[in-house]
C-alpha cells in the first residue's frame, strides 16, 4: 500500500466545492486552475509537482470531490471483518469499481491515497460543522494514510472552532488556511506541516520551503531590475521624427500639429511601457489571469499615469525633493573636497548640497517635458529631425516608481487562488519618507541624472537597482505597519 517512491504525494480531497482547488492553486502558484467548477464535472485528478532542477520534491494532486460517500462506506463496511483489513478493503473497492462510472470520482480520489499519498482534507470553515461529511472522513480514516485537515474559510462566517474539534477526531493534524488571503509565510508553514505527516517527508518539504523562499527573494530582486529598466526608459524617452526642413517653421500650424502628434505619441509610449512593466512583473510572479483595475489608459483619467490625482497621490513634497536633492548634491560636492585634499573644509559638500536642493526644488514643480526641438539631419541637407522629450520633471520619476512599487506589492502578496480583480487605488501617504537616507539619496541622484538625459553607467544602474530593491522592502514594511 505504501509507495516505495520517496517523493511525497499529497492528495487534496474533500466534499465538492470546499476550496480544494483554491488550496492547490495557491500552493502551486497556478492561477489557471479553474476554481468553483461545477461539482461532478471535474472527473480526473490533476497532478501539480514541485520540481527543482527537474527533481520532484513533492506533488499535490487535485482530486474530484466525494459524490457517493455513503454508498462507498456501505460497500466497505459490508466487505470488512476487522479494523486491520480496512486499508486493503479500500484498495479492493478501488480495484473493483475502477471501471464503474458511478464511482469514478471516488476511485479517482482514492487511487493516489492507496498508492501512498498523504491526505489533505479540505473543509469550508465558513459554514457550520454538520455530521454530513462524516462518511467521507470515515472512508479516509479507513485508508490508514497520514492525514491533515485544512479549514479553508470561503465565506465571511467563522465556524473554525466547531470544525477543529470534530476534525481532530479523524485527522492527525488540523490547520486553518485561507487559500485566498494567507500570506506567503503561512504557505511555507502549511508545507512544513505536510512534512510532519511522515518522518521521511520532512526533509523534502523542508528543502522545498527553502527553494520557495529563495525563489521569492529572487523574484523581488528581478522586480527591482524590471522597475529600474522601465524607470530609466521612461525618464529618458524621446519621440523623434524626420521631416522636410520648411515644414515646421516657428509659429506655423504644421509645427503645432507636429508637436501635438509627438506629444501624444510620447504619452502613449509611456503608458505602454508602464503596462509592459505591469505584465512583466505579473508574469514573474506567475499571475497570468489578472483583471487589473488600475485605470484605463485614457487621457486625464482619474488614476491614469498623467492625471492630477495620480500626481497628488504618488508625487513627493517639495520639501522632500529639496532634502533629498541636498543629500544627493552633497555627495557630488564631496568630490571637490576630496580633490582639494580637504582644504575646502567641506565647503564643496555644502555648495553641492545647496545646488542639489535648489535644482530639485525648481525642477520638481510641474510636469515639464522638453518640448519640440528641431535639429538638422546629418548628411541630408533638406531634412531635419523633430524631437519631443525627455521629461524634465523629477516628480514623474517618483510617480512611475510609486505606482510600480505599489503594483509589485499587490502582485507579490496576491495568492493564485484569488480571482477578484486587482484594484490599485492611489496611496494616501508618502511612503518614500519612510526609506533610509541613503536609498532616498541614491534615487534622487539617479533621477536627477536621468532628467538631464545622461546615461547611467553600469555602476550607477546597479546603485539605482539596489535603491529600488530597498524601496520595495521599505514599501512592504510600510504597508504591513499601516495595515497592522
Amino acid at each position, binding site marked *: 500500500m505504501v509507495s516505495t517512491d520517496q517523493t511525497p504525494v499529497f492528495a487534496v480531497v474533500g466534499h465538492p*466545492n470546499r476550496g480544494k482547488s483554491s488550496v492547490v492553486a495557491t500552493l502551486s502558484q497556478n492561477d*489557471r486552475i479553474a476554481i468553483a467548477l461545477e461539482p*461532478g464535472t471535474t472527473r480526473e485528478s490533476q497532478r501539480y509537482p514541485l520540481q527543482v532542477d527537474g527533481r520532484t520534491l513533492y506533488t499535490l494532486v487535485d482530486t474530484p470531490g466525494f459524490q457517493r460517500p455513503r454508498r462507498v462506506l456501505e460497500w466497505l463496511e459490508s466487505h470488512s471483518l476487522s479494523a486491520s483489513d480496512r486499508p486493503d478493503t479500500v484498495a479492493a473497492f478501488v480495484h473493483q469499481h475502477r471501471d464503474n462510472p458511478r464511482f469514478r470520482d471516488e476511485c479517482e480520489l482514492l487511487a493516489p491515497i492507496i498508492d501512498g499519498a498523504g491526505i489533505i482534507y479540505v473543509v469550508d470553515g465558513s459554514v457550520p460543522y454538520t455530521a454530513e461529511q462524516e462518511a467521507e472522513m470515515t472512508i479516509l480514516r479507513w485508508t490508514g494514510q497520514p492525514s491533515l485537515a485544512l479549514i479553508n474559510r470561503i465565506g465571511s462566517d467563522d465556524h473554525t472552532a466547531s470544525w477543529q474539534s470534530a476534525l481532530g477526531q479523524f485527522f492527525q493534524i488540523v490547520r486553518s488556511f485561507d487559500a485566498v488571503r494567507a500570506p506567503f509565510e503561512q504557505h511555507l508553514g502549511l508545507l512544513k506541516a505536510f512534512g510532519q505527516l511522515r518522518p521521511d517527508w520532512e526533509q523534502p518539504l523542508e528543502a522545498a520551503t527553502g527553494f520557495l523562499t529563495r525563489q521569492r527573494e529572487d523574484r523581488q530582486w528581478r522586480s527591482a531590475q524590471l522597475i529600474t529598466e522601465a524607470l530609466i526608459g521612461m525618464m529618458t524617452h524621446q519621440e523623434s521624427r524626420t521631416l522636410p526642413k520648411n515644414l515646421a517653421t516657428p509659429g506655423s500650424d504644421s509645427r503645432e500639429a507636429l508637436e501635438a502628434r509627438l506629444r501624444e505619441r510620447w504619452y502613449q509610449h509611456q503608458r505602454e511601457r508602464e503596462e509592459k512593466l505591469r505584465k512583466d512583473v505579473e508574469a514573474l510572479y506567475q499571475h497570468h489571469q489578472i483583471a487589473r483595475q488600475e485605470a484605463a489608459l485614457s487621457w486625464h483619467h482619474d488614476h491614469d499615469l498623467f492625471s492630477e490625482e495620480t500626481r497628488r497621490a504618488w508625487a513627493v513634497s517639495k520639501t522632500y525633493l529639496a532634502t533629498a536633492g541636498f543629500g544627493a548634491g552633497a555627495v557630488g560636492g564631496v568630490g571637490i573636497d576630496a580633490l582639494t585634499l580637504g582644504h575646502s573644509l567641506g565647503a564643496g559638500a555644502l555648495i553641492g548640497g545647496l545646488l542639489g536642493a535648489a535644482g530639485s526644488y525648481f525642477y520638481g514643480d510641474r510636469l515639464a517635458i522638453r518640448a519640440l526641438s528641431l535639429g538638422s539631419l546629418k548628411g541630408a541637407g533638406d531634412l531635419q529631425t523633430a524631437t519631443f522629450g525627455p521629461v524634465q520633471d523629477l516628480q514623474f520619476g517618483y510617480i512611475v516608481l510609486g505606482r510600480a512599487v505599489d503594483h509589485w506589492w499587490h502582485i507579490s502578496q496576491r495568492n493564485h487562488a484569488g480571482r477578484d480583480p486587482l484594484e490599485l487605488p492611489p496611496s494616501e501617504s508618502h511612503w518614500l519618507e519612510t526609506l533610509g537616507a541613503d536609498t532616498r539619496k541614491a534615487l534622487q541622484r539617479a533621477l536627477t541624472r536621468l532628467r538631464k538625459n545622461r546615461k547611467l553607467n553600469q555602476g550607477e544602474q546597479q546603485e539605482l537597482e539596489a535603491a529600488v530593491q530597498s524601496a520595495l522592502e521599505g514599501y512592504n514594511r510600510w504597508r504591513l505597519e499601516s495595515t497592522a
Partner: protein
Amino acid sequence: MPGHLETLLAFDRQYQRDQQQSPVFLHRRDRRYALDSGEGQAPDIARWLTQLHAIGSHTADRPDFPEIRFWRRFSTGFITAGALLGVITMSGLLFYEGGQQINVTVILGFVLLQLLLALYTAVQGLAGWQPWAPVIHGLQQRLQKQQPSPALAPLLGPMMTRTAQAAGLVFGATALITLLLSVVFQDLAFGWSTTLETSAEAWHRVVSWVALPWSGWLPVASPSLELAEDTRFFRLEGSEAGTASARWGEWWPFVAMTWLAWVILPRALLLAVATVDLRAKGRSALTQHPGYQALLWRMETPSVDTGADTSDSGQLPEDHRSATVTVPHAPLAVSWAGATADGLLAGVDRPLPRAGGAQSLQADRDTLAQLAEQMTAGHRQLVVVTRSWEPPTAELEDFLEDAREQLPGVTITLLPVAGDPAQRPNDQQLGQWLRFAERVGQGVRVAVAETQEATHGVH
C-alpha cells in the same frame, strides 16, 4: 574555436533573441546547461553558445557577423595602405634630394616622428579616445547599410589601435626592405647635415645614444667619430673633395638598425600590448554585457517549477440554464441533507421527512417508502428541499432516481434554500441547481419560493 569578438557578438545576438523568450523557459534552459556542465564550474560562454547553436540548427557552421567582416576588410585595407606607404616613404627619404647625399639627420627626425606616433596611438587606445569614430561609423553604415552592434562599441577603440599598430608595423617592415634593396641595387651616399651650429662630436654623441641598444654587439652599425667628421656636408660648398667616396656608404648599417630598433620593434611591442588590451577589454565587455549577469543568475539559481504551467481540466460549467418555477401547493416534501424550509411550503405543516446527509442509505429508503404511502392520485408533486450553497452531488441524483421508481408519475421539484430562508439564493448558487436539474433530466425542475421572490424583488 571562435575568437573573443565572435563570442561577444554571438552572445549579444543570442541575448537579443532571448528577449522574445519567456523568463521561465530561459531559466530552465540555462540551469539545465549549468547542471550538465557540473556544479561550481565557471560558465564557458563559448561552449554555452556552441551548445545552443548545435541544438538550434543542424549545421555546425560558424555564424556570420557583418561587423567582423567589416573589420577584417577595414584592417586589411589599412595594413595594405601601410605597406605601400612604407615603400613610398622610404623611397622618398632616400631619393628626395636627387644626386645629393641622404641626410641621416632627416632620417633620425622621421624615426622620432614614427616613435611618437606609435606611442600616441597606444595612449589613445588605452585611454579610450575615439576621435576617428564618426569616420568608421559612416564607413560601416555605407558598406553594411545597417547600424553596427552596440556590443562592439566599447571595443572600437582597442580594435582601431590594434589595426593602427599592425599597419605601423607593416609600414616599418616594408620601409626597411626598401632600404635594404636600395642598399643592394643602388649606390647610396649618406651624410649628415644641419643648419644648427653643432660640432661633429656633439652630433656623434646623439648618434651614439641612438645606437646604444646594439653598439655593444654590432659595432659596424655604430658610427665612429671619424665617420661623423668625414661625412658632414654643407649644401652650398662642395665637400666631396676631402672625403673618400666609400665612406658615404658606411652609414647604411646604422640607418637600418635605427629603423629596426626604433620604428619596427616599438610597433611590434605596442601591437602586442594592443592585442592583449583588446583581449582583456573583449572579456570585460562580455562580463559587462547586460545579459551576462542575468545568464549567471539563471545558471546558478535552481529552477523551481511549482506546477504553475499545468492547466487543469478546464471543464467550465455551461452558462445556459432553464428558468425557475414556483413551488407547487401542498406537495410531498423531503429535506435533503438537513435543509429546512420554514414557511416556504404552503400547505405543509408537519416536519419534513429527512434524507441524505448523515443519514444511512437505509434511512433514505425508509423515507421514500413513507412518502409512497402518503402519495395519493391528487398529490403527485415531490419537493426536495436542499441547501442552496451545498453543491448537488451524485447521491442526490441517486435519491431522485430512487424516488421516481418508488413514486411513479411524480413530478420532482428542487427547492434550494439560502442560509436565511427568507432570502432568495444568489444567482451563482441557483445556477448550479438549474444546471444539475438539466443534467438529471426526467422533468426535474428548480423552484424559488414566493417569499424568496418577493425578497429578491425588494433587494
